[in-house]
């Protein structure tokens, strides 16, 4: 039974490949491409953008931001959500908004070099009948098109901190390393707690969302991290940067470390918790978090490293997020030693 499903899928993939040539950009989003079985070769096949080079979205594709974003070597991130006409996303409290089949999340990573914005990659998450599919697209040098890169790529980049790095475009499997939960691919970003109430209200007004979720807009705006309670800034940072893996059912579940915003158990978030499989990542320290002592906390040690095998997160960045690190260090320093 499963075999025949696979064969059918393969057949339809071949068909779709045959018809999805690289013709004129479709007018608006192609729902058939979003929900089809194929892995479209070009970003333009979806029709998400009216002007892709300018990152100007097509009708129905809505830009958004997160209050506290994931650090990606300082890349500018342009985020968009698409909900197909006639369908509506559902509020689910402070958690992910429930996007219907046919929806897509689009995120472009860009760096400004010599005063010019350079698009590097666009990642798409497509909600298809069989679940979410994550695909990475790599922009060409001419900035006219992005091409599917299932195996990812490495791109030389100069970060806003002026560090010359080999920037890693994730491969399709690495997408799942972060987006996987209990074996399925799911979105990470658009949790109501990390989205502004105003934006959510506009989504409701536009008919894309059923209601402004209770529990919306709880995470602080990252640019305000010096003004808000350090615990809020740090826990928001850990939720957004770490908890997609460090939670039950996800890639780092076996560590027993659970860094989700809603986790209140001290040991689960690392306080006084011994490492399990940290290896040399432990850096000679005994606990993930030692209250009052960021310098003795494994969490800080791993955030402050750029060395593979030590550095956390393991994928998605090559440089150290000094700002995020400083917030987490300050939080740990101020934690009462109980």
């Amino acid at each position, binding site marked *: *039974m*499963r*075999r*025949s499903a*696979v*064969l059918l899928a*393969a057949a339809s993939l071949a068909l779709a490949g045959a018809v999805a040539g690289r013709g004129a950009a479709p007018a608006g989003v192609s729902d058939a491409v979003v929900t089809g079985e194929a892995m479209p070769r070009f970003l333009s096949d979806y029709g998400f953008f009216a002007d892709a080079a300018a990152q100007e979205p097509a009708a129905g594709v809505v830009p958004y931001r997160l209050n506290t974003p994931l650090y990606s070597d300082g890349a500018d991130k342009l985020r968009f959500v698409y909900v197909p006409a006639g369908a509506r996303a559902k509020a689910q409290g402070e958690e992910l908004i429930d996007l219907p089949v046919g929806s897509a999340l689009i995120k472009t990573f860009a760096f400004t070099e010599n005063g010019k914005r350079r698009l590097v990659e666009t990642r798409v998450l497509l909600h298809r009948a069989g679940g979410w599919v994550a695909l990475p697209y790599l922009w060409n040098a001419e900035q006219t098109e992005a091409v599917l890169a*299932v*195996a*990812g*790529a*490495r791109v030389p980049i100069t970060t806003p901190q002026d560090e010359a790095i*080999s920037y*890693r475009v994730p*491969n*399709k*499997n*690495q997408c*799942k*390393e972060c987006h*996987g939960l209990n*074996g399925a691919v799911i979105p990470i970003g658009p949790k109501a707690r990390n989205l502004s109430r105003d934006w959510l209200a506009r989504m409701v007004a536009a008919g894309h969302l059923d209601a402004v979720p209770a529990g919306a807009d709880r995470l602080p705006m990252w640019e305000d991290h010096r003004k808000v309670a350090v615990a809020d800034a740090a826990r928001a940072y850990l939720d957004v940067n770490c908890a997609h893996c460090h939670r*039950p059912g996800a*890639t780092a*579940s*076996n560590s*027993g470390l659970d860094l989700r915003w809603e986790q209140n158990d001290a*040991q689960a978030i690392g306080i*006084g*918790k*011994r*490492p*399990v*499989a*940290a*290896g*040399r*990542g*432990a*850096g*000679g*320290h*005994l*606990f993930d978090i030692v209250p009052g002592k960021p310098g003795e906390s*494994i969490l800080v040690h791993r955030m402050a490293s750029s*060395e*593979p*095998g030590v550095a956390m997160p*393991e*994928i998605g960045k*090559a440089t150290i997020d000094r700002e995020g690190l400083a917030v987490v260090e300050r939080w740990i320093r101020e934690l009462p030693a109980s």
Partner: protein
Amino acid sequence: MVRTAIAAALLLSAAPLAAATHDVAAGEGAQQRLQEALIMAAPGDEIVLGAGRFALDDGLSLDVANVTVRGAGMEQTVLDFTGQQGAGEGLLITSDGVTLRDFALENPKGDGIKSKGADDIVYHRIRVTWTRGPDAGNGAYGIYPVESTGVLVEGCQVSGASDAGIYVGQSRAITVRNSIVEANVAGIEIENSRDALVENNFATRNTGGILIFDLPSLPVMGGGNVIVRRNLVVANDTANFAPPGNIVAGVRRGTGVLIMANDTVLVEDNVIDGNPTAGVMVVAYPQAFEDARYNPFPRNVVVGANDFGRNGYAPQLDGAAQLLAAFGGSLPPVLWDGLSAGGTALRVAEGVTGWTLGLTRQGQPVAEARPAPLAVPRPEDRAAPAVGAPATLDARLAL
């Protein structure tokens, strides 16, 4: 009705023939080509790695079920991660039914091969080597299946791991067999796992040969039902080089078999010789813990007949000189910390000698030990626990 049944049967029977083989050769662009093959493979496909050295600069991953990755031999096909720039392991497997065979990994920056939530996996004739030998900067685990049901590790070789060469964690239905683990901190470690068979392996020059552990505060706990038999556990005498902070950093140099906080473990028919601290050590979890679900004590551990040579001749223990003097030059092969709760911690076969630290409470410092000769009951006449990987995994070895 009949027609659709026939059509379905045809589809099903035709399916194995449809499985494709993808050849990947070493050389320019190996990273991209191999990763693409791993992503584009269909369930049931085989990826064949040519002989040669694949220079890789990133971790690899496989997320397609029932795929075989086959090299030309563990000395012929080498995935060289010396230049690895990213990822926490060399190769990550997240799909079920995968077979990995006949290739090697060298110098991964983190772990070697990690398979997580990957049921029914076979590692056959896989080698993972950190070529500079023992070094705290080496990756933690060589072969690292975790959170999986159905694990067969057969004919593998791991050396240089700064934690455990072959580490099976939070899993069940496990066989580790015919493998050589040398110069790791722990040779083979079965942690927070059940129904494991560890047999016919050669563990030498590790800090500790074979470790059976259960640790608190993990998603899966309650390790037990383990048989350790017919292994050569010889001359495990490398100084502990684990980075501090890890549980294995506490393993004393020269521990043959170490059983900590497990239920129902049988150790028999092994050759255990030349391990300077102890042949077999049976202990409670030594540290403080807050997890109410956790049982820190060893329970129903049986040390049957083993071929014990000279162990415990240079124990890494406080008061070693007095101990050696008291026991006549070397310690008896079995060391128990004396701790138990709710039942019998340890039984030994007739003729097996040992000693106890005489501790009386969990977490008590070893400095407070009151050593005494071992006096524990004989094994009961009980059937050995049913353990090991499903037979279907063994059947794959012949393919």
